[in-house]
């Protein structure tokens, strides 16, 4: 992907917002490319992690949220383990995903987001993951109705799929943690957004 870099206004705002959200300091990235070299998902990504971090440093918010990169990140943490400046790059990918949701951005690739949602819904509902139910919901919500249907019977035959959901005596406790963590994240989001905007004497960053 090619970008025309035009710095307008406060281009460090995005870097500050991410720093306030998770403590990662992206000014430390000197673009060595180690993260992209080890990333297993780059063939499918619009841009590797190195370029993604650069867009953040430049404050190019629209270009950043247009990338499929954070949604394709498999959370393998190879980048985090190898970064010579100890930047937790995998955590930044998580944070960009969360920011995209909280800011109501259009998400460029649907399937990983749907998977995340149905997975966590299954856990919240049952206390434990119920794989057949999750896959059924995934197929409905993603519109890919016959995804992997061939595997189901094979796994059933091998006794690898439970017929009914397992539940847990701590299901209610788990739901309470879901509620509290969601409220905590929303509150933290508001605060960090205020902090990031509060830098005096600057306008907002733009990449248009």
């Amino acid at each position, binding site marked *: 992907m090619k970008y025309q870099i035009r710095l307008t206004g406060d281009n460090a705002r995005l870097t500050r917002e991410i720093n306030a959200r998770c403590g990662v300091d992206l000014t430390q990235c000197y673009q060595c490319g180690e993260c992209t070299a080890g990333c297993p998902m780059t063939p499918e990504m619009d841009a590797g992690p190195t370029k993604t971090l650069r867009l953040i440093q430049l404050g190019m918010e629209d270009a950043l949220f247009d990338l499929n990169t954070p949604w394709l990140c*498999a959370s393998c943490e190879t980048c985090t*383990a190898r970064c010579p400046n100890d930047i937790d790059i995998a955590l930044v990918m998580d944070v960009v995903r969360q920011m995209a949701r909280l800011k109501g951005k259009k998400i460029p690739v649907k399937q990983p987001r749907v998977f995340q949602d149905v997975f966590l819904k299954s856990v919240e509902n049952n206390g434990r993951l119920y794989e057949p139910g999750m896959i059924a919901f995934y197929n409905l919500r*993603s519109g890919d109705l016959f995804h992997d249907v061939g595997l189901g019977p094979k796994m059933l035959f091998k006794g690898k799929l439970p017929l009914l959901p397992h539940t847990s005596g*701590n299901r209610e406790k788990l739901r309470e*943690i879901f509620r*509290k963590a969601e409220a905590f994240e929303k509150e933290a989001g508001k605060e960090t957004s205020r902090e990031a905007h509060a830098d005096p004497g600057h306008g907002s960053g733009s990449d248009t």
Partner: protein
Amino acid sequence: MTYAYYPGCSLKGTAIDYHTSAMALAERLGIELKEMEDWVCCGASPIHQRNPALASGVANLLLSLSKGISPQVAVLCAACYHNMKKAEVEMREDGKKRSEVEEISGIAFDPEVRTRHFLDILDKDYGLNALKEKVVKPLSDLRVACYYGCLLSRPPEIAFDDPEQPTIMERLLEAAGAETVSWSHRMECCGASHAVPLTHAVLRLVNDILQSARAAGAEVIACACPLCQANLDMRQAGILTKFGVAHNLPVVYFTQLLGLACGATGKEVMIEKGMVSAAPMLRAKNLL
């Protein structure tokens, strides 16, 4: 030796063979894995991708369930290990994080608690020499590619072995008489839960991993994660369709091989569960 055992969801479903073989092995070694009651799902990768505070809150609940059994929590799944160990280390080292997580989970963190992967327990607590003494059927003439994938040793703060060049699985399997191969893709990610939403990418990754293991002369891949096993084993049919490559390489859990070496039967380690069966090859070597 008693540990509080957290199986996690996969070990009661798609990875029932991992659970069963680990139990059979533990029994032969005299290790007690006592299942914690009323455990819930750790949330795997989706949970921290959505909300890290939720991931730590759930991990703190899970760690608290070890109370009354042992502060040593035994885990087999790499994703469960990753989530629980990460939260545990974070809470022990960062007071602010700890109070946030305690608030969200409504549970006080016990700094004595330790999340332990079963590989680490066998290596450090049980020991290779003690394991060798329990081997009744050495895995002679068996060439194994040990596959680590991602989350067993990443991030480095939670690793129990060298995070870039781990040897723990090789050491254990060699102690049981196997020959391990040197290969390029032992630490490459299999794509994990992307197998559902981004199947095409996982087929590409798994094809490379299997290719590399075969090129190194492996007859079987050993792994320590339910998602690694599922992707490497179940996706071979998809790889045949997409790339026209028939790998036919069995992918088993390290506990299945060690279990057999320590005298468990094929049935006890559920060796027939794989889509690509390891049974004919093991039978030909008199290991079944």
